[in-house]
Structures are given as structure tokens and as C-alpha cells.
């Protein structure tokens, strides 16, 4: 009795945190339909079952998992939607009642799920609640994309605006996108600088210095993807040259810790290319250079730096700039046994080949004019008859403002802008007037906020459909992370988005547009933690051939893979199961895929079953590992959170440590060490859910390569999932995770709905999620069917008028 009580307290401690976490941190599940025939259940039977199987632990006295079901009337579901959604989620994934406790028979189990689903959905349908919406401002990504689409101009937003906060796993959550004086000030500065470059105003464009760096862990002994063929190493960037003018290019080479430039033993040619054309060339290395470098490394480095400094006249506009070495031979220089050994890890080795460290670009000097840039063409849609051509100015500024504000303009809007034009043109030119008008547009709350207007005639609390023009903005920020284009805005202004067929046409058009790449970068990048890979640095001793080339290849693979699901409108289940992927030679070697040569990426059919889908991708296996070793716990948690949709609660404070292997003692496998950890009942409650999932991925090491031994022992990839399914290795794990496709699709839908709405989900949103999944099931869970389901869903289309709207506005 005493032991039982202790275990129960342990359980309460661990799950207790879960219970107090906000609802959306945990997620609900579609009931498993496969296999179990549901028995029709009456409300009274459901109540009896809850009393019999759940209330023993979940009652007012014990509040296990911070959930008390004894006070809830299961026959009146609407009154207790929140706790009952929790119940439904646990039943749906088969994780409650726990293994070893009495469970209802499968028909009853399925019957209770069907009953709860039906009642919760009906209750939500009877009282639609689109959730709280708050005035959102553009986040940094959206701001940069909006400038790109408005002005045909790429900006480095990280130097213009402060960092955004994120919540619920995404950085576009309206609640935490606050405003501050710093932000306001930066909006003003950004507006001024962007406007100057957009129209090419030499007086307002100072000499700029821009440093592009090669990541220090990039090996440069081979050709790099994207650079011209016949080159080795180097870097490639797209730089916006603000004016027709001269620019100075400083190329810096990697040095050892004592300032010797690496690789001076033999001569190497370095070329500088602008838009693919060679504009400068210099030779470094050879007898003279290496001797002088040994005489005095610092002064000779300065001499070489001077040799690698070029002044070049460049026409305004975005251009690619490449600095790379001419490839002398394709023979592998050294280390044939480990051809991908990271070349930069030895910081005192001066041998090998030179590496580009950075490119510093300064200018403009001696400008000759604004040039013919894409942004000038975009902005100046008419040719003024003179500096005071108000008609042309009105056309230019109205065209810009309408897209920037994402709505038809009022007379007042236009009047304001023309006033600014007038002030500006007095400085001398038509362009100066446009520039000042544009500054006003970009600083406007109508640009930086996503304004949605409550109709005055509605009562507070009324739920209403937002206008087509507002819907157009919601749609484009969801799919493009940017403002609507001219077509979408026009269709909306004509009121056509109410038409389901037209809406569907627009969704398909938008998903086919290259701008839908935003879903890969922003949605998938955050959902799947891909953004973390850039900062992930595996231990160099353990993984000496992991370098930035491999890291970049892993990211590129994920981008191409996710993109293929969108472009080919595949079933989102293919994310888990697809038998193809994208690799280049470097990544193919990492995965042991034969016959792939060269740095470019191509699609390959996977013959290794365990590599299929997300769980076989290097990027995901690496970001869920520690620097020195795999973590079955982190991997298990990642899957519970992002695939199954039941994230475990955070660990309690003061967790006893995992014992690391140490010299002199017999090394123990990760499994042995974790098993010891699980002997602590407090820990076991959650780790019994996470660890077995992670163990199944142990055949992949901490950088996602296949392995069959760990710490000297053969890998044991077996385990048991919360619902009792036994798995062994990545393949059976994956099969178990998709055996009920609704589970993965529901999780993805929840994540995507969170991202689309820009807010955390609550119990009232779960019926919406279920409806989207149900409807997508009819179209084989195609990507567009999930997106379409979200766009046509009640919370995406509707809004609730503020409750206290009736109060008189503050003076």
C-alpha cells in the first residue's frame, strides 16, 4: 500500500507539470479508427466507463496529471470541453489507461472515443469560437519579404529591425510580437534607408561596408555547390549594389593562429566574379610568398591582403559575387582514407590549400547615377513630365501604398502621400519626392500592422466573416509570409474570395509560386527544428569529417524534400514514408548511397528502407543529438512532440544525472545507462514514453550516419510504445507511427493551424483540427487539402468582435 502511494505521488509529480501547462502545449489526437469497430455508447455508459477506468487516479483528491474527472458530467460534454479534450487525446493515442492498469475492451474504448468526438464537435459547432485575435505586426521575415515583393529589393533585415520573440514554437505569434520605442525608431530608420536604395538617391546612400564570411568549419579543398565549375572553395553571395559606381572588394584568406596564411607552398589563382564574369584575378602562394610569410607573417599577410583588394566599377542592382580559387587538379590532395576530413579544424597547420575567410565589400565610390535597378523599375511606374508632375507621383505612390497597406486606398491616404511628395520634391527632384512619400508609407501603421477592422454595426461578441481583402492578407501571410500580390488583392477587392472555386484556384496558384518556399523556411524550419542545425556543432574529435559542407547538404536535402511535397501536392504522410530523397556526393557518401558524384543535388530513390521519410534524414537525426553522442531521450521527445503530438512535460528540478562512461570503467551502452535512470519512478513515468522511441533510432549516430555498434556493444533498437506496440529499429518505429495515419496528420495540422492563425490553439480549436483532418482524408491527405482545410476553417475565416467594444473610446 505504501509503495503504491509512493508510485502514485511520483506519477503526480511528473505528469503534474503537464496538467498546468497551457493547453496548446499538449495536443489532441484523432481516435485510431484502424482495426477497432466502435460500439455505440450512450452518455450514461460513457460516464460509467470514465468513473470505472479514469476516476481512480483523476479525482479531486489526487488530481493526477492535474486532472479531476469526478466533478465532470460526461453526459454534458459542452460544459467541460477542456478536460474532455485531454481525455480524448490520451484515449486516441492509446496512452491511457496506462499499461498494466485495467482497460475497457477495444469496442468500448473506440465507442467512448466516438462518443466524445461527436459530442465535442457538436458543442463547438453550436457555438463557433474563432478564438482571440490581436492586432499583429509583421515579424522580421514578413517585413523583409514584404519589402522584396513591394519594391523588388532584398534587404538584410537583421541589421534593420530587432529580434522577434516566439511562442508555441513559432515566431509569428501575434501575442508576443509587441511594440517598443526601439522598434518604432528602427521602423523610421529602415523606412529611410530602404526608400533611398529603392529610388537610388546618391545623397542618402552612404559608403557601406558589408562583410560576408565563410563559416569557419567549411572545408574548401573541393568544389562547392553553386560556385562556377572549375573552381575550388570560396564563397558566393548576392549583393545589392545601390548605385552605378565603383566598389572595393577585400578578400581575406584563412590564417593559422600565428597569422600565417594557409596554403602558400604552391601558387594558387584566386578569381573574383560578378554575375559570373571574371572582374579580377590574383595569384597567391609559391616560393616567394612562403618564404616571406615565414620571415614575418604579419607584414606579409598585409602584402597579400593588398594583392587581394580590388576596385571595380559595378552597375546598380542585385548581382552575384563569387570569390574562389581556380581548381588545379581533381586529385584528392591528402587524407584519402578520410576524404571529407574537416580541413579547418587544425588551426596551426599552414599546409594544404588556401581558404577564403571573408569578403568585405565597400562602396559606392564615385557614383555615376542611380542605374537601372529592378526596384527603380518597380517603383517608377510612370515617367514624370517634370519634377512637379503630381499626376505621375500620385500614380506611383498610390500603386505602392495600395500593396503596402493591402487594401484599397482612401482619399485621405492619397492626400497624405501627395503632401509628402510635395515636401520631398522641393529638395530638388521628382525622385526625392517619391522617396519621402515611400518613407511615409513604410513607417505607417497600415504597413507594419495587419489591421483588421471590426464592423461598427455588429454587437460585441458577435462572430463574423472577415472581409475578402482581410482574408487575402491572412492567406498571403500564411502561404508566402508576405503581402498579397496584385492578382490576389484584385480578386479580393472584387469580392471573389467568397467563391469557393476561386479561393481554391488562388490557393493552388499561391502554392505553385516560388514564394511558397516560405512554408519550407518558416513553417517546416520551425516545426521540425531545422533552424537549429545552423548552430549545431558536433564534437570534432568524435566526428572529424562533419563540416559545414555536410551541414549545408543536410539542410538542402530537407528543403528540397519538403518542397517536393508542396510542389507535387503529395500526401503529407510521404513526409514520414517517401522512398526518395535529394542528395549530392557529400551527403550520398554520408548515407552510403553509391554512384552519386558532384556537388549538385539530385533526386534518388532510396533502397535503404530505414532512410525513408523524416526519421531517416541527417538534419533531424543531428539536431536531436548532443555534440558527442546520440540522445534517445531528445529524439523520443522530438517524435512525441512533432509526430505524435503528445509532448512530455519538462523534467522536474534536480534530476539525477545520467552516468557518463569514464576511462577505466567498462563502457556501458546508452540503453544500459538510461535503464538505470528509469529505475527512479519519478523519471520513469515520462521516460518510459520517450526512451523506447529514441532507442529505435539508435542505428543512426549523432550526425545521422548508420552504425551497428555503440560503446563497443551491438546496437539494440528494440522498445515498446505507450500503446503497447513493440518496435525494433527505425523501420518498425516508422511503421508503428503511421499505422494510424490520423495521428501524424493531426499533429502536422495542429502545428500548421498554429502557424496560420498566429496564435496558440485551445480546446475550442480541436474540433476544427479534427474537421480538417477528416476532410483531408478524403483527398489522401494531400498537402493542398490540409492547406485548403485551414484556409476554409472557421477560425481562419471568422473573427469575433471585441467584447467590450461598446465602451466609449478613451479621449
Amino acid at each position, binding site marked *: 500500500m505504501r509503495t503504491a502511494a509512493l508510485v502514485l505521488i511520483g506519477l503526480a509529480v511528473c505528469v503534474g507539470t503537464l496538467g498546468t501547462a497551457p493547453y496548446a502545449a499538449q495536443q489532441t489526437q484523432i481516435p485510431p479508427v484502424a482495426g477497432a469497430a466502435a460500439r455505440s455508447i450512450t452518455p450514461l455508459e460513457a460516464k460509467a466507463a470514465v468513473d470505472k477506468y479514469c476516476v481512480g487516479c483523476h479525482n479531486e483528491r489526487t488530481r493526477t496529471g492535474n486532472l479531476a474527472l469526478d466533478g465532470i458530467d460526461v453526459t454534458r460534454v459542452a460544459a467541460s470541453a477542456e478536460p474532455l479534450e485531454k481525455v480524448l487525446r490520451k484515449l486516441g493515442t492509446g496512452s491511457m489507461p496506462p499499461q498494466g492498469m485495467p482497460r475497457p475492451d477495444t469496442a468500448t474504448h473506440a465507442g467512448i472515443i466516438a462518443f466524445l468526438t461527436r459530442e465535442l464537435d457538436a458543442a463547438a459547432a453550436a457555438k463557433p469560437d474563432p478564438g482571440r485575435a490581436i492586432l499583429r505586426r509583421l515579424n522580421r521575415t514578413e517585413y523583409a519579404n514584404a519589402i522584396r515583393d513591394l519594391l523588388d529589393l532584398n534587404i538584410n533585415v537583421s541589421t534593420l529591425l530587432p529580434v522577434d520573440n516566439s511562442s508555441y514554437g513559432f515566431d509569428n505569434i501575434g501575442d508576443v510580437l509587441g511594440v517598443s520605442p526601439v522598434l518604432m525608431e528602427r521602423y523610421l530608420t529602415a523606412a529611410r534607408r530602404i526608400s533611398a536604395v529603392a529610388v537610388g538617391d546618391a545623397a542618402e546612400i552612404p559608403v557601406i561596408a558589408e562583410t560576408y564570411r565563410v563559416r569557419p568549419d567549411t572545408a574548401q579543398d573541393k568544389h562547392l555547390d553553386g560556385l562556377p565549375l572549375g573552381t575550388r572553395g570560396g564563397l558566393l553571395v548576392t549583393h545589392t549594389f545601390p548605385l552605378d559606381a565603383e566598389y572595393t572588394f577585400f578578400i581575406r584568406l584563412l590564417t593559422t593562429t600565428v597569422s600565417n596564411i594557409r596554403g602558400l607552398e604552391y601558387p594558387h589563382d584566386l578569381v573574383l566574379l560578378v554575375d559570373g564574369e571574371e572582374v579580377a584575378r590574383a595569384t597567391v602562394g609559391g616560393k616567394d610568398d612562403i618564404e616571406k610569410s615565414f620571415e614575418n607573417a604579419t607584414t606579409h599577410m598585409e602584402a597579400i591582403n593588398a594583392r587581394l583588394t580590388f576596385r571595380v566599377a559595378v552597375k546598380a542592382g542585385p548581382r552575384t559575387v563569387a570569390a574562389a580559387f581556380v581548381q588545379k587538379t581533381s586529385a584528392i590532395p591528402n587524407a584519402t582514407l578520410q576524404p571529407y576530413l574537416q580541413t579547418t579544424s587544425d588551426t596551426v597547420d599552414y599546409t594544404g590549400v588556401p581558404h577564403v575567410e571573408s569578403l568585405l565589400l565597400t562602396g559606392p565610390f564615385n557614383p555615376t547615377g542611380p542605374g537601372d535597378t529592378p526596384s527603380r523599375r518597380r517603383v517608377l511606374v510612370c515617367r514624370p513630365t517634370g519634377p512637379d508632375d503630381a499626376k505621375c507621383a500620385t500614380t506611383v505612390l498610390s500603386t505602392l501604398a495600395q500593396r503596402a497597406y493591402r487594401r484599397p486606398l482612401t482619399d485621405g491616404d492619397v492626400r497624405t502621400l501627395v503632401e509628402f511628395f510635395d515636401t520631398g520634391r522641393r529638395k530638388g527632384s521628382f525622385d526625392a519626392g517619391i522617396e519621402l512619400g515611400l518613407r511615409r508609407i513604410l513607417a505607417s501603421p497600415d504597413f507594419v500592422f495587419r489591421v483588421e*477592422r471590426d464592423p461598427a454595426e455588429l454587437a460585441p461578441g458577435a462572430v463574423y466573416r472577415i472581409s475578402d481583402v482581410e482574408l487575402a492578407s491572412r492567406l498571403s501571410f500564411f502561404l508566402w509570409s508576405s503581402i498579397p500580390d496584385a492578382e490576389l488583392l484584385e480578386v479580393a477587392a472584387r469580392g471573389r474570395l467568397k467563391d469557393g472555386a476561386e479561393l481554391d484556384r488562388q490557393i493552388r496558384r499561391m502554392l505553385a509560386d516560388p514564394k511558397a518556399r516560405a512554408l519550407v523556411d518558416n513553417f517546416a524550419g520551425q516545426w521540425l527544428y531545422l533552424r537549429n542545425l545552423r548552430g549545431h556543432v558536433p564534437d570534432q574529435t568524435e566526428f572529424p569529417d562533419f563540416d559545414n559542407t555536410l551541414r549545408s547538404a543536410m539542410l538542402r536535402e530537407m528543403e528540397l524534400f519538403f518542397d517536393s511535397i508542396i510542389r507535387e501536392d503529395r500526401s503529407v504522410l510521404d513526409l514520414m514514408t517517401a522512398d526518395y530523397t535529394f542528395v549530392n556526393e557529400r551527403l550520398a557518401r554520408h548515407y552510403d548511397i553509391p554512384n552519386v558524384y558532384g556537388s549538385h543535388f539530385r533526386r534518388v530513390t532510396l533502397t535503404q528502407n530505414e532512410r525513408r521519410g523524416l526519421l531517416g534524414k541527417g538534419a533531424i537525426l543531428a539536431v536531436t543529438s548532443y555534440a558527442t553522442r546520440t540522445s534517445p531521450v531528445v529524439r523520443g521527445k522530438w517524435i512525441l512532440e512533432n509526430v505524435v503530438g503528445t509532448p512530455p512535460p519538462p523534467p522536474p528540478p534536480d534530476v539525477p544525472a545520467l552516468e557518463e562512461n569514464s576511462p577505466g570503467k567498462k563502457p556501458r551502452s546508452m540503453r544500459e545507462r538510461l535503464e538505470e535512470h528509469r529505475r527512479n519512478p519519478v523519471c520513469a513515468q515520462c521516460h518510459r514514453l520517450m526512451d523506447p522511441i529514441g532507442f529505435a533510432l539508435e542505428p543512426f549516430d549523432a550526425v545521422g550516419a548508420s552504425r551497428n555498434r555503440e560503446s563497443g556493444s551491438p546496437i539494440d533498437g528494440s522498445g515498446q510504445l505507450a500503446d503497447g506496440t513493440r518496435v525494433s529499429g527505425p523501420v518498425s518505429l516508422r511503421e508503428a507511427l503511421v499505422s494510424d495515419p490520423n495521428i501524424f496528420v493531426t499533429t502536422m495540422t495542429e502545428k500548421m493551424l498554429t502557424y496560420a492563425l498566429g496564435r496558440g490553439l485551445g480546446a475550442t480549436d480541436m474540433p476544427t483540427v479534427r474537421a480538417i483532418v477528416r476532410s483531408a482524408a478524403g483527398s489522401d491527405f494531400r498537402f493542398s487539402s490540409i492547406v485548403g482545410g485551414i484556409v476554409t476553417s472557421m477560425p481562419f475565416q471568422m473573427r469575433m468582435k*471585441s467584447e467590450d467594444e461598446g465602451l466609449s473610446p478613451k479621449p
Partner: protein
Amino acid sequence: MFILKKSLSRRTFLRGTGTALALPLLDAMVPALTAQLRTAAAPVTRFGFMYVPHGVILDKWTPATEGSDFEFTPIMKPLEAFRSQLTVVGNLDLGPDQGGQHSAPSGMWLNNTPHKRTEAEDVRAGTTVDQMIARQIGQQTTFPSLELATEDLTSLVGACDSGFSCTYINTLCWSTPTTPLPMEINPRVVFERMFGDPGTKEQRLARISEDRSILDSIAGEEARLRQELGTRDRARITEYLENVREIERRIQGSEKQAQSSVDIPESPAGVPNSYEEHVGLMFDLMALAYQTDITRVITFMMARELSFRSYPQVGVPDPHHSISHHQNDVEKMERHARINTYHVTLFSRFLEKLRQTPDGDGSLLDHSLLVYGSGMANGNQHTHNPLPTLVVGGANGSLKGNRHLLPPKNTPMGNFLLAVLDRAGVRADAVGLSTGRLDL
């Protein structure tokens, strides 16, 4: 990915003047700015708050003896040269554990106020003392305060305390209990905020007047926006417009500055690759901001809670957060202590710079009150007591140095913060969980 970006990416062009050689130039520009130095007649106290995450190895931090002439511990050793202006404060407690293992230390450090468990809009902590001081003494300078940090948080997903908004970890500064302030990581941006874009005096004045007319015009739309928006939205737009007014005030300040013909120095090229250079540059900018009296209150998060930064430059290839969970392994504790010592070393260079900079009748250090510490005590166990805390600087003669203070055990951090507020002339009866005033 730098190398693969072919389109739509973060490329850069919008930059002010300058070259890559940031540090020496920052030094070189100082003579040009000395015109602005204030006279001995009115020395003012500058306030600074320096934060390090994950606590410290307490055995190697806490001096063995109380009172004066204590022996410097290994972590504090780099500060020994500042003994006469340094006070170690022990036994400070952040308060009872209410969840948020890493969000509490940063979210509660400067307000000692429990932070609300939420990931939504309703974030709530407490007004931080830096902002209370800024309100008191900041209106006389261009910027009431500056908030600086070093880590780009956007590249980390899912790396905040679960159940708590990332906000609590991303900032140390709250201007009201519900308004967190963003912290800037790019030295170039800090520089440009301080000195504006280059140009002739006429150009700069013209820019300022244009910015003003834009702000006036936006403020003129207030009525329309209020009418169109719902209550909650209106609150946010009101906040926005209040900021418009704050910026107008600030612009008046820079107008005055533009009138004086100060040569604007060249600015740093961006975020340096090396952490040491990055932190050094931030400290240089801070010294410059104090020196030119652009601001008197600065908060600097030297690294963020849950930081995964590794420190190979001092022989620690492991991520900071991982190594802070040292599990009492001697080797790991030693590595954590190395990071602690390294942070203190970087701080000591800043102190040296302040000591070298004349200010009125003394040095900047004589006229500063700098708090250095962490909101966590033992990173391995996430304990919040005793918080490692140092105060350095003469605070215009209001602080004695060479002391190791040991108030009663579990003294709330708020008691210490109240004592800091006193030095700024801010009248307050309590700060968060404070139970009285620490005798500092």
C-alpha cells in the same frame, strides 16, 4: 548556408559607413568626441547590469572570508586589480521555485518578481530596476537606456522553457510588468542608433525634420485608427503611438546633438565572428555611450540562458548549457568554471577601459555602478540561491569597495536591488519579493 543562398535571402546592403576594423577605430574616434565630455561640475552616475547565464561554480566564486581584504577566488581573480571599488554580495536569493528553470533567472533577475507561466500575450513579470532608473535619470539623455545582448535567438527553435514564453529568456528588461524590451545584438546597429547615419550637418538636420513630419502625420491618424479597431487592438495601437511620441522626444535630443559639430566616427561592420570580439565591441560601445552621455543606463546580457555556445578559446568545446549540468563531475565543473572565469575576464577589460577614461574629476569607473551576476546559482541543479553578485565602481563616492558582504541567508534579490535604486535617487518601497533594504 551562406554559400547556397541564391535568392530571397538575408543579404545585405543597407549599411552605414565604415570598415571591418572596428575595434581600433572605436578607440581612434574617442578624441573627436571628447568635446562632449561633461565637466567636473556635474558628474553623474552611470548604471550598468551585466548578466551571465547558468550560474557559476560557487566553490570557485565565493570568497572564503567576510568583510574586507578577502582573498580573490579563482573565478574572480581577473578582477583583483579593482579590489578597492569592488563588493561581492553573498546570500542573495531569487525566491521560491515556481517553475521556469531558465526563464525565472533571466525574467526575475532585475525585478525579483515571479513571472507568469504563459506562452501567450499575457506575459507578466515586473518592471526592472534598470528601467526604473532610466525613468528617473534617463530623460536627460538621448536614450533613457540601452539593452544589449550577444546571441541571435532566431536560429533556435524549441529552446525555451516549456510553458513559458521565450520572451522571459530573450530579455532582462521590462519597462512595465507587461512590456518586455528587445535587446540588440548587432554592434553596428547599436552604433548607428547612437550616432545616426553619416552626412553633413544639414543632411542630418533634414533627416531629423523629415522623421518628425512622418511621426506627426502618423500621430494624426490616431483618431481614425481608434475608430476602426477593437478594444484589444486599440490598446496595441495606443502603445505604438505612445512610442511615436517617445521617439519624437528622442529626436529632439539628437537634433541638439546634430547642432554640435561632432565628427561621427566610423562604425563597426556588423556582428563579428568571434565571441570575444563581439563582447569586446559591445563593451567598447557601452563605454563610449557613457563617455558621450548618450545614455546612463545599460543592461548587457553577455550570454543567454540555455545558451549552447561553446568556448573552445578557453578549452571548452562543450555547449555552455550542457556543461553547466556538470553532475558534480570534477572535470566538467572545472570546465564550467573556465567559462565563468572567461566571462569575468571580458568584464574586467571593460572595467579597465572605464578606469582609463577620464570623466570630470575622476574616471568613468569612479562615476559608475555596475552590477555583474547571474539569476542562477548552481546551474547543475537550477538553484536560485545564493546568486553570484558583484558590484563594481565608485558610484560617485556612494559605494565603498574591498568588501565581501554576507547579509542573512536567503536575503531576497529585491533587497539588493532596492539599495541600487537608492544610488540612482529612485524612491521605491519594494522591488518584487524584497523584505527590506540591503545595507550596501
